[in-house]
């Protein structure tokens, strides 16, 4: 019998590689090795509804146990892949033992970027990536007196919106001059900053952290670069992520801030595919190599990887999209705003129902929508088709953008 496929990873991409490989006709054994003790689960709710209890643990698994059983996907949970021997086609496990493979899929994801400062290891200083992280955070959140969030990215802002809605005092400390400097436009960042301030969240922009202090091993405060001390009995460090490429790198696969893959999700070894947050891939949409951290990227790239494993060619060409829920705002983003030179607003910022269309050299490159999901959905179609309204048409609500899709 063939040794089949071994998938290293336990989240969206790992699940979807297995599902898509089977769908595309891959008939050999599939084994999914995940460091986490549970089946692949939703991560986005961990910084939102899961913390408030609105999203129950039962709703977290991406697929039920029956899915893995019916598709003959063996899951090895709570097992960490320690090293790869590509020549011998074996994965060694941390607990001893190894798995033989014919094909290998790496979906190792990312881990929170550490903050190498004194006090970062104090009790009450948390990160948020896994379900275990979320459980720790949820346990502490209810009783927290004052919260400092280090990092003004999506995770930090989502946690801040949950905590502020619970009536907790929250300070966000961000080193850049604005929120979400890496992910969204200055216009959306300014809008979200206003929303957070209006909910009582204090924003300290252009502010670094010097150290984190505590007593008896428990966190008590965060000291900023300018010397100001912020009281905190709960600190979330949310300053981005680092791709988990060590396993691949040590085995000789090309990595450059991400495991390098081609548009068929193949690594530099023809037997090995990779997908998800851990990869750096050629983006047909952006015309450059990208590493994306999103559910969309994980799922769509994994569909490509699954097809590749089954001997089919299904290039990864999706338009990137993302979402974030903060307070009652539904923020949906499609395309990539970086490099845009012009924008047009459709709808009303005051009413918190608008979309910003971004253009580069007159062509649509991205749309950020707040409580305007229809624009977002339409944007996905427009960008996939390579069609573009003019900035005037985008700003004019009497112009029906659907006509551009139908044309």
């Amino acid at each position, binding site marked *: 019998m063939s040794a089949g496929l071994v998938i290293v990873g336990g989240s969206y991409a790992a699940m979807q590689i297995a599902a898509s490989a089977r769908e595309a006709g891959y008939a050999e054994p599939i084994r999914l090795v995940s460091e986490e003790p549970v089946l692949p689960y*939703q991560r*986005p*709710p961990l910084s*939102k*509804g899961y913390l408030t209890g609105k*999203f129950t643990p*039962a*709703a*977290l*698994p*991406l*697929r*039920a146990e*029956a*899915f893995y059983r*019916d598709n003959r996907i063996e899951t090895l949970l709570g097992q960490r892949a320690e090293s790869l021997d590509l020549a011998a086609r074996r994965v060694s496990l941390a607990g001893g033992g190894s798995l033989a493979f014919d094909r290998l899929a790496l979906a190792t994801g990312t881990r929170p970027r550490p903050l190498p400062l004194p006090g970062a290891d104090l009790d009450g200083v948390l990160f948020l990536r896994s379900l275990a992280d979320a459980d720790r955070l949820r346990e502490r959140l209810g009783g927290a007196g004052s919260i400092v969030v280090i990092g003004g990215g999506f995770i930090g802002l989502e946690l801040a919106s949950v905590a502020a809605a619970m009536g907790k005092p929250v300070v966000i400390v961000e080193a850049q001059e604005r929120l979400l400097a890496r992910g969204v436009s200055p216009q959306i960042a300014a809008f979200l900053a206003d929303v957070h301030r209006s909910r009582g969240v204090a924003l300290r922009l252009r502010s670094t952290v010097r150290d984190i202090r505590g007593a008896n091993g428990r966190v008590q405060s965060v000291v900023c670069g300018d010397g100001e001390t912020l009281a905190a009995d709960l600190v979330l460090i949310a300053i981005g992520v680092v791709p988990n490429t060590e396993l691949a790198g040590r085995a000789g696969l090309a990595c450059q801030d991400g495991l390098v893959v081609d548009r068929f999700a193949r690594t530099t070894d023809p037997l090995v595919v990779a997908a998800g947050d851990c990869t750096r891939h050629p983006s047909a949409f952006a015309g450059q190599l990208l590493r994306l951290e999103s*559910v*969309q990227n994980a*799922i*769509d790239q994994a569909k490509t990887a699954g097809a590749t494993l089954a001997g089919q060619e299904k290039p990864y060409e999706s338009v990137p999209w993302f*979402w974030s*829920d903060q307070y009652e705002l*539904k923020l*949906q983003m499609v395309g990539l705003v970086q490099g845009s030179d012009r924008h047009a607003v459709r709808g009303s910022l005051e009413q918190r129902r608008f979309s910003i269309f971004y253009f580069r050299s007159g062509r649509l490159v991205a749309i950020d929508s707040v*409580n*305007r*999901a*229809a624009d*977002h*959905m*339409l944007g*996905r*179609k427009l960008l*996939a088709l390579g069609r573009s309204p003019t900035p005037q048409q985008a700003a004019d609500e009497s112009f029906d953008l659907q006509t551009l899709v139908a044309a």
Partner: protein
Amino acid sequence: MPAVVYVLKDGSERRVDVPEGTSVMLGAIQNNVPGIEAECGGCCSCATCHVYVEPAFADKVPPPDLSESDLLSGVAAERKPNSRLSCQISMTAALDGLTVRIPDKQSL
């Protein structure tokens, strides 16, 4: 416990008990009913849990809110008057036997 009948792409039916308060989407995921992808996990962001509600139940299911209605404008399969996002339909005793048809595709 009320039941949902999912009509799959191949026309076959799967009858599944779904607890009151649980969404039709989650009922499908938890029971391994294929064809409902639910990429966003039910937060009404992705439109990959599209179903067609059988006309007999049209009046029993509360209508979509603005955000669902907005998303429905962008579903991958044909949007019909009975199109719904299954993550937004919460099961009740009155919906026992709710029959939903799964469209041929969920993503573009």
